């Protein structure tokens, strides 16, 4: 089974890297860019009996390692 885990900064957490990218996009005259927040994507292959088990395992992985839940949110998608 293939899964994609997306980790993003929580609202209100300053993201200086996102700000720098936003500034770079604006300097390239790319029209209409409001704001940019940077996150992480993990593409994971997982063996599991069914989708619910895979989802539960990946949520555990997020809680234990992939996300720092003080500042980050995560989303698990099976693809």
């Amino acid at each position, binding site marked *: 089974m293939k899964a994609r885990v997306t980790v993003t900064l929580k609202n209100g*957490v300053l993201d*200086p*890297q996102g700000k720098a990218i936003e500034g770079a996009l604006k300097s390239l005259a790319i029209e209409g860019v409001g704001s940019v927040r940077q996150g992480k994507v993990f593409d994971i292959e997982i063996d599991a009996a069914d989708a619910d088990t895979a989802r539960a395992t990946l949520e555990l992985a997020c809680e234990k390692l992939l996300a*720092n839940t*003080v500042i980050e949110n995560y989303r698990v998608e099976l693809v």
Partner: protein
Amino acid sequence: MRAAIITFPGSNRDGDVARALRHAGAETVAVWHAEDSLPPGTDLAVLPGGFSYGDYLRCGAIAARSPAMDAVRAHAASGGLVLGICNGFQMLCEAGLLPGVLMRNAQLRFVCRRQHLRVERNDTAFTSAYAKGQVIDVCVAHGEGNYIADPDTLSRLEDDGRVAFRYCDAGGELTPEANCNGSLNAIAGIWSPGFNVLGMMPHPENLIDPLVGGTDGAGLFDSLCRAKADAA
């Protein structure tokens, strides 16, 4: 004072902190991160600076889940002393032994320079050789040292007097220019509720020898050795 210094893949300041501790009179033991216990009689566990696991995922995140960290957690829970410097401070936050997070420096640059710190209190095992409010001159060298915590956590730290050091200028003033990474309340180091776990971004171990330009860092290691002698 028996100090266990834990080396992770990518640690690079373990030798310096061992030298600083021995200079203060401590006995040091090297411990590999895959060990699941600390040597018998360990008084102080040290998480040294460096770039454990190449700073992959988040600084200190992977090291914080190593077997040795479970031993450090148990040591801290039984009242043992723990010192995390730079990458070690990041590990302590990732491991949940200290609150908050060290984010990318506000100015987005790695900062490597001499830095003044204000010692916030001297009634702890880590700072008794300093005066309260003393300004010390040490080094910083990090890209992710911008301390943040939610407002409740921050006010709890302040109310409990758990801020150990703040970035300041030579006169002890907390100016925006002196705050080298944008940390909230100019926080350079914090204690656990029991004051037995200290995490700090600056490197006191760099400044223990007049040969390299100063000795203001020695007080931290002298304090630790004195704490052990007083307890004996």
